[in-house]
């Protein structure tokens, strides 16, 4: 794999993370991070949606009339989101999680990361880099989701993936952690950590 592809794949995970650096997709990262399971399914769904819609639109990029390109993007992204939702609903293992995530799966379509990457990257690049860019941005989003969900489930319910961890030692669940505002506090802390490591992000 050449250096440029590697950069495309790795940059969104940390240095150009869509949540902590671009501050996109905040809404859903507050809503779906109560449990690790939910966050994981959401992360995988977003990876599939960003990856495949970037691929499709990159393949179509030279044929799309520029005046209706946003509409064409929307149609493709909406199709992917509905497909993911339908598939999650039809498996026994994921049905309950799909119900728990309820509207947020459908709301992936409004996630700025998806349209943002298509508009900024996929429409101007070849299919393979576009696909990798989509997957990497989805993964960068998912990584933050999982970090936030880890702390929220551990401190909020005393469990991880539904297994008792802190509960065994008589931990009393903290209700604040379950509520969305705490996710914002955690996100703030993550951004803080990243900015103190990555000095070039700091404003002068």
């Amino acid at each position, binding site marked *: 794999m050449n250096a440029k592809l590697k950069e495309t794949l790795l940059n969104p995970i940390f240095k150009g993370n869509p949540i902590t650096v671009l501050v996109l997709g905040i809404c859903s990262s507050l*809503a779906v991070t109560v449990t690790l399971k939910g966050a994981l399914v959401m992360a995988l769904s977003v990876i599939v949606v960003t990856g495949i819609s970037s691929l499709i639109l990159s393949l179509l990029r*030279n*044929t*799309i*009339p*520029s*005046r*209706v390109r946003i*509409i*064409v993007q929307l*149609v*493709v992204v*909406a*199709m992917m989101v*509905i*497909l993911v939702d*339908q*598939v999650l*609903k*039809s*498996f*026994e293992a994921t*049905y*309950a999680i799909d*119900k728990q995530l*309820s*509207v947020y799966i459908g709301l992936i379509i409004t996630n700025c990361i998806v349209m943002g990457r298509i508009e900024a990257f996929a429409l101007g690049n070849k299919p393979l880099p576009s696909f990798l860019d989509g997957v990497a941005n989805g993964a960068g989003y998912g990584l933050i989701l999982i970090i936030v969900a880890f702390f929220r489930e551990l401190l909020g319910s005393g469990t991880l993936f539904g297994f008792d961890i802190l509960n065994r030692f008589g931990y009393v669940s903290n209700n604040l952690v*379950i*509520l*969305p505002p705490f996710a914002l506090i955690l996100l703030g802390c993550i951004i803080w950590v990243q900015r103190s490591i990555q000095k070039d992000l700091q404003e002068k």
Partner: protein
Amino acid sequence: MNTNSNIYTVIYTTIIVVVVAALLSFVSQSLKGKQEANEKADTISQMMTAAGFGTKPEFQKIGNAAVLERYAEEIESAYTVDIEGNKVSDLPLDKVYSPSELKKQNYNIKGAGDAELPVFEFKNGITVVPIYGAGLWGPVWGYIAFNKPEGGVISIKGAYFDHESETAGLGARIKDDPAFQGEFAGEMPEFGSSNVFDIVKGGSPKNDDGSELLDNKIDAITGATMTSQGLEAAIDTWLGAYSKHFQAGMAIVTILESLEDQASVETEETKKEEE
């Protein structure tokens, strides 16, 4: 080729939309069976949760097949009644009502047609009926389980509610908060009155000793006034529609109990006479 001409744009978008629509309807059709099976098992586990056979996470853990099996073991009979309390028809024992079917009956209760309301009776004497109504953002529905009538009254065994899109952390607590659902246990709806059930701030007024003065009021959810009111309206409407059915059931039990009393009195009298 000029990709910016009007004709090209119209043809291009038409093709894209038709292709996507065809693909989506194909996928939707081919996955329908599996989705319906999941939904059915989910509905059954909601009914069984209301009736106290287990909790929702427990049913999720054992899987769909085991849930259906357990239901087949426990269910005694299923039938529909009309608003007058008369039995309309028997239902197959594996029949459950999806939210869209409940929605149809909800219109019927409100006068759009002849309501045929499902009643599910379990072998241990518990009766489960559905409710359906409008929450804040979308429909709310659920199941209320009743104990066997005793001494002319019917009390609630348990309840489980579900919703389509109530606010997470607030209105969604009708589904997620076992403590809220737990409040229903032991309450006694006033069948036949205009105010069958109340979900209000503070719940029932209390007696001096802390016991509840009224048995048809429970505490609403803070921050979810509209959802609580919607749920209350749904319960009032549906239990109101079931009133005649339950009143008939209570009346029969009262008659049977008084007959038993009489019989025992008579046997005592005959005993005395014999002595």
